[in-house]
């Protein structure tokens, strides 16, 4: 299906369609929504990491002037233990509801307990302090290995470990065990000349989007519920809210406002059902906003993890066997990304003998949520460090050992499926040839490191409608919220089909009543799948336009061709008309044209990345500075290269933050002590060099233009690349994230 021809629009860099709105402050984000009679909601959160709720008394809060309504878990319809299959996969509805407003137990500090609607936000906030909650405080479990101990306090008495459908007898904090096995690992290790085994610890980190969660809800008198919010997926909000409130999806309209970052963290709902409950109770529109500490403490970070990696290789550098043990913190409810972590951990390599065990473990921390290639960065920190160590011990260049073992089309992944056409080798080769890698690297306490990473990407449903305008432009209606320039990258694919400019497309992201089902902006799928739907919708328009030209010229449709924006008649008549001119004649040839496209493609091509980083280590303070950074990535086909580079640069920098400073710091009671942008320490622009993003294009056969998802894989390599660079600088293997100054000082024996 790959169209291997020259492109006119694809690969260019037009100004994004929503650009002017966003540089002038006109673009409306969720919190910007205003309505007459609006009430303001705030959520009361648990001060304890683990406690039983004995009672909730709202009477003092209700008496505060300006308070219009208070809700608790009692206001959520009783869900029983129904399994709801929602946007995030299999989610136990009870867990979902309890995470919205705790019913019997609070399972993390920051767990929502009640919410207030009042005439202004300050009153709502004050009212929260007047709600009396009596707790029976229980001992918290804050670390994955501690939680796996047989005598650990249990978060959920009914959880028993499941292993692919088989359930253990005893209750446990281990919700599930997964395993992938390929070949005979024992045999593979026996064939190795060198075996390296190391243990790794990674901290809890947050997506860190700048816009806090928000939601405004309103019930009409006829029961129609409208929710205005920032979300990665309006349809998944509709599904989750419908399940939680036990309310028909046909009565819920979700209006996606502009969204201020998500990275996976704005798929799960938190305050959207709360806003709906408050709106129902008060009969008024209610806007609920989180503040920054609510975001850190009450929304899903990505898990901390404990990982053990063992790899064996021959002295020539051929990897003979690999073994991994991954234990991930799910947070308060099951569902960590240990699955994808286990799936991605050895994916850059073709290894005959592999065994991977993964454990999903509940702890008294917020329920984890997706974050950019969820699970894969944790895993790659382990595997890519071990590969580096093998290379170093064997005296082989670290990129050379990757080339020697690189996965390619036809190789079998450790979890079973066979790789289609992939660009692993191409990214390593491009990194090796890059001037950064060949530049001298000799200064004292300076080091260079490399690492590779894999993310599989995903397809899922997307729908696009195109309305043709009489002036030769089109209105493109889509359901994918635009977090990073996807209006442009989707519009460009339609423009390419129709031979028009990117500027001739007016893309709109619309509400759930106004476009066909579209899955979330996530999984690196939007430019791939919604772009694919736009391609199909444009093809639909093209077919209809060809029919109109045939009517116009009184020829058979088969005698009309379309190329370079011109319709022409073949066989006989010498007729020609531009797309634009034909658009002006739709009325007389049969009326308006609406094209549509829906897809659910299975061929999302996996993405590989290889990063090179230079660091300087201050041996006296343990501080690591990033001196130079190059990120190579296979994009399949870069539709809008600027925004592909942007994804690569942004992902790499989030990885740098994860590597060096970002983590949830907890005290013994389970309180996060750094729940602010001040102390969570995301990178500022003064902490970084320019990030050289190098796009490699190995077209994905599963997309008409060869697109692969690009959003997620750039966060996979940075942690290991930086760890390897630190080793190069000071000769110490860092095995715990973040590699913060105090940890470096300890590792260097300075404290």
């Amino acid at each position: 299906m790959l169209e291997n021809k020259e492109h006119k629009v694809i690969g260019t860099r037009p100004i994004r369609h929503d650009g002017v709105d966003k540089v002038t402050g006109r673009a409306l984000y969720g919190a910007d929504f205003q309505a007459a009679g609006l009430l303001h909601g705030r959520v009361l959160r648990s001060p304890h990491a683990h406690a039983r709720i004995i009672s909730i008394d709202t009477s003092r809060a209700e008496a505060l002037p300006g308070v219009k309504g208070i809700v608790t878990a009692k206001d959520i319809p009783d869900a029983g233990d129904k399994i709801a299959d929602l946007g995030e996969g299999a989610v136990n509805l009870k867990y979902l509801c309890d995470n919205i407003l705790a019913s019997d137990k609070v399972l993390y500090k920051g767990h929502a307990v009640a919410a207030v609607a009042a005439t202004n936000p300050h009153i709502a906030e004050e009212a929260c302090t007047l709600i009396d909650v009596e707790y029976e405080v229980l001992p918290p479990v804050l670390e994955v290995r501690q939680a796996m101990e047989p005598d650990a306090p249990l978060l959920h008495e009914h959880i028993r470990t499941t292993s692919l459908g088989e359930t253990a007898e005893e209750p446990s904090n281990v919700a599930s065990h997964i395993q992938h096995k390929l070949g005979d690992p024992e045999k593979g290790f026996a064939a190795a000349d060198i075996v390296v085994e190391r243990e790794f610890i990674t901290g809890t980190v947050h997506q860190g989007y700048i816009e806090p969660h928000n939601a405004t809800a309103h019930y009409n008198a006829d029961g129609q519920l409208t929710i205005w919010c920032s979300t990665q997926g309006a349809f998944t909000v509709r599904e989750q809210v419908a399940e939680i409130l036990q309310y028909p999806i046909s009565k819920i309209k979700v209006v996606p406002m502009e969204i201020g970052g998500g990275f996976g963290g704005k798929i799960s709902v938190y305050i959207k059902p709360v806003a709906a409950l408050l709106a129902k109770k008060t009969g008024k529109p209610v806007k609920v906003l989180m503040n920054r500490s609510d975001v850190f403490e009450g929304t899903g970070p990505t898990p901390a993890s404990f990982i053990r990696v063992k790899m064996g290789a021959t002295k020539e550098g051929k990897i003979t066997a690999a073994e991994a043990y991954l234990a991930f913190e799910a947070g308060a409810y099951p569902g960590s990304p240990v699955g994808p972590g286990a799936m991605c951990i050895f994916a850059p390599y073709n290894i005959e003998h592999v065994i991977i065990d993964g454990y999903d473990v509940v702890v008294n921390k917020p329920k984890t949520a997706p974050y950019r290639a969820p699970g894969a960065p944790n895993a790659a920190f382990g595997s890519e460090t071990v590969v580096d160590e093998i290379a170093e011990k064997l005296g082989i260049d670290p990129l050379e050992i990757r080339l020697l073992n690189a996965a390619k089309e036809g190789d079998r992944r450790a979890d079973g499926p066979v790789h289609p056409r992939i660009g692993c080798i191409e990214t390593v080769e491009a990194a090796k040839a890059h001037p950064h890698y060949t530049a001298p690297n000799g200064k004292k306490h300076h080091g260079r490191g490399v690492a590779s990473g894999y993310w599989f990407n995903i397809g899922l449903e997307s729908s696009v409608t195109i309305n043709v305008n009489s002036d030769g432009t089109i209105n493109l209606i889509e359901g994918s919220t635009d977090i990073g320039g996807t209006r442009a990258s989707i519009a460009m694919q339609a423009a390419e089909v129709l031979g028009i400019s990117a500027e001739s497309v007016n893309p709109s992201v619309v509400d759930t009543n106004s476009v066909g089902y579209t899955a979330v902006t996530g999984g690196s799928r939007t430019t791939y799948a919604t772009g694919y739907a736009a391609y199909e919708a444009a093809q639909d328009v093209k077919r209809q336009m060809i029919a109109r030209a045939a009517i116009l010229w009184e020829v058979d449709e088969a005698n009309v061709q379309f190329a370079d924006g011109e319709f022409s008649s073949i066989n006989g008549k010498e007729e020609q008309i531009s797309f634009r001119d034909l658009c002006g004649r739709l009325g007389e040839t049969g009326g308006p044209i609406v094209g549509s496209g829906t897809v659910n493609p299975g061929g999302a091509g996996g993405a590989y990345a290889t990063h090179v980083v230079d660091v300087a280590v201050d041996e006296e303070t343990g501080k690591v500075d990033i001196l130079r950074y190059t990120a190579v990535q296979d994009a399949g086909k870069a539709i809008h290269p600027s925004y592909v580079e942007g994804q690569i640069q942004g992902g790499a920098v989030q990885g740098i933050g994860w590597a060096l400073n970002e983590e949830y710091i907890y005290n013994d009671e389970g309180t996060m002590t750094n729940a602010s942008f001040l102390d969570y320490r995301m990178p500022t622009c003064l902490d970084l060099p320019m990030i050289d993003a190098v796009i490699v294009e190995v077209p994905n056969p599963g997309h008409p233009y060869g697109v692969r998802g690009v959003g997620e894989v750039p966060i996979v390599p940075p942690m290991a690349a930086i760890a390897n660079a630190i080793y190069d600088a000071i000769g110490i293997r860092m095995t715990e994230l973040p590699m913060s100054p105090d940890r470096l000082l300890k590792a260097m024996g300075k404290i």
Partner: protein
Amino acid sequence: MPIVAIPSLLRNLTNGEESITVPGTTIREVIDNLEVRYPGMKARLCEDDRIKPGLAVYINGLLTRGSILESVDADAEIHFLPAIGGGMAAPSH
């Protein structure tokens, strides 16, 4: 006939066999035929005539919708893997 890669955690049901060739033109038929040969298999893979939540079905290396109605070619390779709870939505019905 389609080949089913047996996940390591289910190999206790297949006496350690790692892949099984079974007849079937849909995932449902394949699973039913697996069940005939290896009783207990269906309960590990399905729930209420659906693939269990938390499980994903790959045919020839491509992630499917996870429906038992999915058709399979005569020489298809089928994998049952943990569903991705990750950065993307899992199949919705």
